[in-house]
């Protein structure tokens, strides 16, 4: 099974996404902030990264930028989600972002569809 790394500072929201992604028959690893995410990615590069743009330490953009600087992580497809609309995919595409989900409107099926979509 392909591994999806979920980067989410909110424990409950992270649990929620873990359940959803697992229901799509993917394995899940979790990181609560950018620092632990980088440690985990260094150990094992995931097939997909699903992350909140708003993290508790270095914000998501900082992490996206760092991932693009390494040859082994620059190609990992990334799905970001944000609380509100206004985040344009075109703005984030240079950082390897393939999908943008909006928390205010997305449903569980949208998450699984997005993961499958970026792996297709």
């Amino acid at each position, binding site marked *: 099974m392909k591994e999806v790394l979920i980067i989410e*500072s909110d*424990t*409950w929201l992270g649990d*929620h996404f873990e359940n959803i992604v697992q229901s799509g028959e993917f394995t899940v690893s979790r990181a609560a902030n950018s620092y632990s995410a980088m440690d985990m990615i260094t150990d094992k590069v995931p097939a997909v990264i699903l992350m909140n743009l*708003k993290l*508790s*330490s270095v914000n998501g953009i900082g992490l996206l930028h760092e991932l693009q600087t390494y040859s082994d992580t620059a190609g990992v497809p990334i799905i970001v989600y944000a609380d509100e609309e206004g985040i344009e995919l075109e703005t984030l595409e240079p950082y390897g972002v393939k999908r943008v989900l909006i928390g*205010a409107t997305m449903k569980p099926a949208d998450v699984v569809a997005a993961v499958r979509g970026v792996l297709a």
Partner: protein
Amino acid sequence: MGNRDLSEGYDGHLFNDASLQSALAHEITSPTVLLRQLSLMVADKNTTPDKMDTLSRQLTLTSDKILRMLKTFQYAYDTQQEIKLETINPMNVCVDVVREIKPLFMAQGKKLEIKPRQHSPLLVANYMYLKQILATYLDNALPYCSAEDPVYVSVDVIGEKIRIGVRDHGPSVTINVWDEVVDRLGKAASPVASRPHLSSVGLAVSHKLASAMGCDVGHVRHSDGVTFYVEANLSRQMSLV
């Protein structure tokens, strides 16, 4: 407390209404999105009864947090009225607010403690305002603690003032954080870059409430966290007896 005592009181300017409303709308979106996602899990046919109990608790605690945020907003406008100042035992306020918010910490596997202290001197403030300020500090501290590194609420006497502090283990903030919060309120998604989850509205309103009571707010930067505090005048009640 910490290794460095870079104590920074705030005596800056106030925010305007438009920036406050814009910032609140932005900040309240995160817990509301969480509420929505939790509700979707409740509606999921595959959710087990055990999981349903947990979700129910999470829904309640998240709703409580949203209500606290709305109360903060309400207080921002209520300070036009005359404030009732009273003599308060600071430990009572600490116990009261910790009792209210501790379940949220525990449900996330985190720890919130009060530093024990006997016979604290009394202070002069408005009980509800003081409690609201501490609730804001505690909500802000939640992402920056764990079971091993708890958030501590402490009461200290600093000269003629009583300082109630909330000590976390998060990233540092700048010396000018209070000015930054007010200057960038409603203009930036995360006015404090090192702490995207920090409620700028909460800090701005805390300053406003403190000023209305004749108290001060500020922060102390440690090598491994920050203490946000409110300082009130010692009560002279005893010396008049």
